[in-house]
């Protein structure tokens, strides 16, 4: 590290903090996926197929999640539609 690195680093975003943000997202995702029934990914694909008949979307624009709220299972479907 030279003195010049210090100047450069203060302007650019530090790569370690980018790493941390990316990890926080992927790990949260991983943890919900881990606790979900095995059929969820397959069901998500089917839902994407159905929506695709009507609107042009990508797989990652549909988020399917099963939550349990006070003994009650809630299937949450989140679709980001194009403008």
């Amino acid at each position, binding site marked *: 590290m030279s003195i010049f690195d210090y100047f450069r*680093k203060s302007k650019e975003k530090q790569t*370690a*903090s980018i*790493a941390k943000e990316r*990890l*926080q997202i992927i790990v949260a995702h*991983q943890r919900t996926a881990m606790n979900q029934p095995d059929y969820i990914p397959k069901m998500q694909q089917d839902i994407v197929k159905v929506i695709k008949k009507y609107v042009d979307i990508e797989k990652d624009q549909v988020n399917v999640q099963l939550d349990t709220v006070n003994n009650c299972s809630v299937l949450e479907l989140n679709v980001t539609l194009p403008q």
Partner: protein
Amino acid sequence: MAKIIVVTSGKGGVGKTTSSAAIGTGLAMNNKKTVIIDFDVGLRNLDLIMGCERRVVYDFVNVISGEATLNQALIKDKRLKNLFILPASQTRDKDALTKKGVEKVLNDLSKDFDFIICDSPAGIEKGAQMALYFADEAIVVTNPEVSSVRDSDRILGILQSKSRRAENGGDPVVEHLLITRYDPERVIAGEMLSISDVEDILAIPLLGVIPESEAVLKASNQGTPVILDEKTKAGLAYSDAVMRLLGSNVDYRFITVEKKGFFKRMMGAGR
């Protein structure tokens, strides 16, 4: 009754075998009768790191299949009277380890050892699951780097759902985070995840931080667990981790950048 500890990581090459050898040796140095088992069937390496590769006659799979007794297969360490190694088979495939067979060996060892250290293979498949299945505690070895942290989180999920303790619904496996190959200089420069970054993401208690150190390669070249080299930072950091595993409260060392003399700084030395 022995305490069974798995050393695991998901990702390969992060320092599981180095850590198993160091921690197992450290426990024996503290008068705990310890056996280190190599679960990496087909890719035996613990024997090399421990320096007993020429004394391997029988292995873990031979014991499970009844071709040898446990006493025939256990290798006694030449340096420490309390330390034993059970090598992995080099020729069989991973299916040679059955749950029943592994359980029998662990039960037999449990009778006369204080600690059983299981050096897990990389991955999250059968081999890694076998190594962690019977564990009471887990040491999750993580490098401060994105793919290693992500894989550690995966293995934590498996510990919490697929271990014997998880299946039987008893106390969960006790989890410990061991960060290895840590380089404080790169952390200061913002190029490497810090200890607290990794702790924040994995959310398990820290057991130790082992610095990136040339001593590790030198120790492995000679077949000496690095913890026996008490002049090195990596060796001392492993000793501290062992003390914490035994319940002591030990301050962390080698996690900040040392002040360097002007000359050393000019030469860029001291890593």
